Structure formats: structure tokens, C-alpha cells
């Protein structure tokens, strides 16, 4: 099964990444009638404060392992095919994508539900930590919101 999990310390173009991943599937692409994507982007506001930059810390090795485990468990449940997850690490500026998820499946349900479940689980299980730089100083984001 073609699968890419990639942590990036520089900005990337999510549309070019999605296009390149699909190209990589070659003829296999035609097996999948459905393709679902999620892109999470850094806003310039969070909980009432202007945010100028974000610092994303992670746990090298475990972070990639957790993402792979989440994908594997959801693939077993839902039956989707190829999967792409890209996540930023290090310093991120407003407007830059933080996370991209893409799933391919024969029928739409597996890709759509898989995308929703993977972003939800990634936010609560994969070891990443955000620190925001605001005019009032730096602050660690204390928890992720549900939904």
C-alpha cells in the first residue's frame, strides 16, 4: 500500500503535494473512486489573541510511529487504500499549512470518514506541542478542542 508520512520543517504547497502523491499512484489511481483531503492551516488569531508565529515541538520517532499506527488502525476499520500525512514541525507563520491528510478509497465512505477520524486522533494522540508567540509573550497551547 502506497503511504507517505512526512514531517517538514519548511513551508510547502499542499496542492502540489497532493498532486505529486496522486501521480505516484500511477495506474492504481483508477481503483479509487473517492479521494478525501483535510488541510489544517495556521490562523493569525487564537482564543482572542493575535498570534505572530507558532513553534511546533515533536517527539522524533514516536510522532511518525503514532501517525502510522493511527492510519493502520483506521485502515483496518474502514478499508481505505493509499494515505498521505504531512505535518509541519518547527517555526510556522500565519497562513502556512500545518497538516495535510489525503486518503483514497473505492467508495466514498472510507476516505471521508477516515480523514475525519485521522485528523481527530492525530490531534489527541500524536506527540506534537504548539507554542504561540503573541504580543503578550509566548504561551504553550494547553489542549486541542474537540471538533
Amino acid at each position, binding site marked *: 500500500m502506497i503511504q507517505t508520512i512526512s514531517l517538514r520543517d519548511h513551508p510547502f504547497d499542499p496542492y502540489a503535494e497532493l498532486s505529486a502523491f496522486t501521480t505516484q499512484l500511477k495506474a492504481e489511481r483508477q481503483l479509487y473512486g473517492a479521494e478525501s483531503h483535510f488541510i*489544517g492551516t495556521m490562523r493569525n488569531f487564537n482564543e482572542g489573541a493575535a498570534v505572530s508565529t507558532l513553534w*511546533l*515541538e*515533536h*517527539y522524533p*520517532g*514516536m510522532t511518525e*510511529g*503514532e501517525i502510522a499506527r493511527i492510519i493502520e488502525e483506521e485502515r483496518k476499520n474502514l478499508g481505505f487504500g493509499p494515505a498521505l500525512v504531512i*505535518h509541519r514541525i518547527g517555526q510556522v507563520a500565519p497562513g502556512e499549512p*500545518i*497538516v495535510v491528510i489525503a486518503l483514497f478509497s473505492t467508495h466514498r465512505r472510507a476516505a471521508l470518514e477516515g480523514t475525519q477520524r485521522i*485528523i481527530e486522533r*492525530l*490531534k*489527541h*494522540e*500524536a*506527540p*506534537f*506541542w*504548539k*507554542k504561540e508567540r503573541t504580543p503578550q509573550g509566548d504561551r*504553550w*497551547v*494547553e*489542549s*486541542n478542542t474537540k471538533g
Partner: protein
Amino acid sequence: MAIRIRYFASLRETMGRTSEDINPEGIATVADLWKVLDEGRPLPDRVLCAVNQEHATATTLVHDGDEVAFFPPVTGG
């Protein structure tokens, strides 16, 4: 036994260190290990842990050569 400890994010700042190698005696679980690291205090609910890069709990057993990490709730995505 030899244990490699790692701290992340706000907990790393609170503890004032990124990692340490320790050789504790008479400990069985992650909770026991934390007491050694934090002057006898119990593992707070808000501190999460991993053993050998997999999510663990206070009652997870630790063994010689393990890597044990402590960190606050995760906030990626």
C-alpha cells in the same frame, strides 16, 4: 536498571532539562519512576507518558534499557 528519560514542551521547561539517564533501584512502574524524578511527588494527572515511544500510563511497567518520556497533553494538527 538503566532508564533514559525524556521531557517535552512545557514539562521540559518546568523540569529544566530535555533528557537524563538514570539508574533507579526498586521501581516497577512509570508512577514509581516519576517519584524518583520529582522528589517523591506523585505523577500529576496532566502529565502524560510514553514507554519506548508508545503511549503508556502510570501503571505501565518499566524495564532495564527503556526510554520513558513525560509530556503535557498533545496539541498538534
